[in-house]
């Protein structure tokens, strides 16, 4: 039976994920369209802008959906579940990097901003990226989830497995720290 790909476009993430776990390629493609680039972007930002590593992690994450999608609790929000797995995978990568760093220094790949010169916006982006690379693991994850992936506070609370109040206060202190680190840019007019 040929599957109707358009059918899945109207359905919820949870329903589409269920069909994908049952072996529907059309459902899987729809799910990948919704989350493929998003998750890759998350991994890319979290894992030192390393494209190959981000692709490997994206592939591994979707493989988990194919193999263990049936274990997904339908009462949970799919995106939260998805980001929770991604969050744990990043933690594992940080641990591996720590072990590696003992024997050889980690080479940070060139960021996109390195190749683009001059404009204030590029300089600001570069500074922000550098700041992100220097951040502690937990802060970096909070920043990417909240300000790049635009997840809500309750969703971040579930992904990171911490209370909502803690998420809010951590965001507050994160903003404060970022402002202090980037204070040199406060007179810069990069937006009208």
């Amino acid at each position, binding site marked *: 039976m040929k599957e109707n790909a358009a059918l899945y476009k109207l359905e919820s993430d949870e329903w589409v994920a269920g069909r994908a776990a049952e072996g529907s390629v059309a459902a899987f493609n729809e799910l990948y369209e919704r989350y*493929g680039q998003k998750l890759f972007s998350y991994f890319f930002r979290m894992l030192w802008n390393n494209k190959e590593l981000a692709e490997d992690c994206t592939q591994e994450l979707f493989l988990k959906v194919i193999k263990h999608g049936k274990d997904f609790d339908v009462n949970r929000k799919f995106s939260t579940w998805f980001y929770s797995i991604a969050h744990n995978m990043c933690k594992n990568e940080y641990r591996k990097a720590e072990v590696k760093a003992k024997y050889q220094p980690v080479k940070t790949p060139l960021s996109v901003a390195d190749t683009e010169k001059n404009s204030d916006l590029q300089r600001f982006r570069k500074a922000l990226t550098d700041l992100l690379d220097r951040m502690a693991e937990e802060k970096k994850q909070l920043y990417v989830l909240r300000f790049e992936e635009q997840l809500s506070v309750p969703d971040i609370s579930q992904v990171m497995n911490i209370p909502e109040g803690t998420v809010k206060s951590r965001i507050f202190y994160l903003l404060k720290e970022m402002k202090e680190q980037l204070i040199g840019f406060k007179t810069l007019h*990069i937006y009208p």
Partner: protein
Amino acid sequence: MDAEEIISSKEWSELNASEKEMLSDLVADEQEYNLLKKIMQVSAEMPDTVPAVNPSVQQSLVDVMKPVRSIKPWYRLAVAAAVVLFTAGLIFIILRKETKEPVMVKTLPSIQKDPVQPLVKTIPPDTSVNEMVVADATIKSPTRNPVVKKHIPVKEPALVFKNLQTDLSADSSLLAFVSEVY
């Protein structure tokens, strides 16, 4: 409304006194407030600067899914039937092999030469019983396994009949009965 929401949704000029009071721990003036706005705006655009994921990632995942999809119930049934048939066949062969074990029977050389001879040699009452031997019922055909693993010694029939002769001569009534039967 918390500090983050205020910053992302309002300009400095739109803030009221209570909101400014709320943000006092975070920002000291309009420039700092605008810096935080910039950080949030640029951060939201960051995913756009990320390169596109390689299409081969999706393709390889779809390839992984295909074999999973092709396993249909009839295919599983066919595999199960094949396993059952194979097991039944194996049991049949083993049982058949066990019943075909070669039987050692002592045969007379004359019987081996001429298979038409009677199976049992009839012995008249007055004949010596030492010659009585049981013959093989069939012509000896080459067996599948000609090597005999264990040789079972055949008890000399003469000894048995010798004892019988002794017993018969001892009991005259029994001797008379046997003679009458023969």
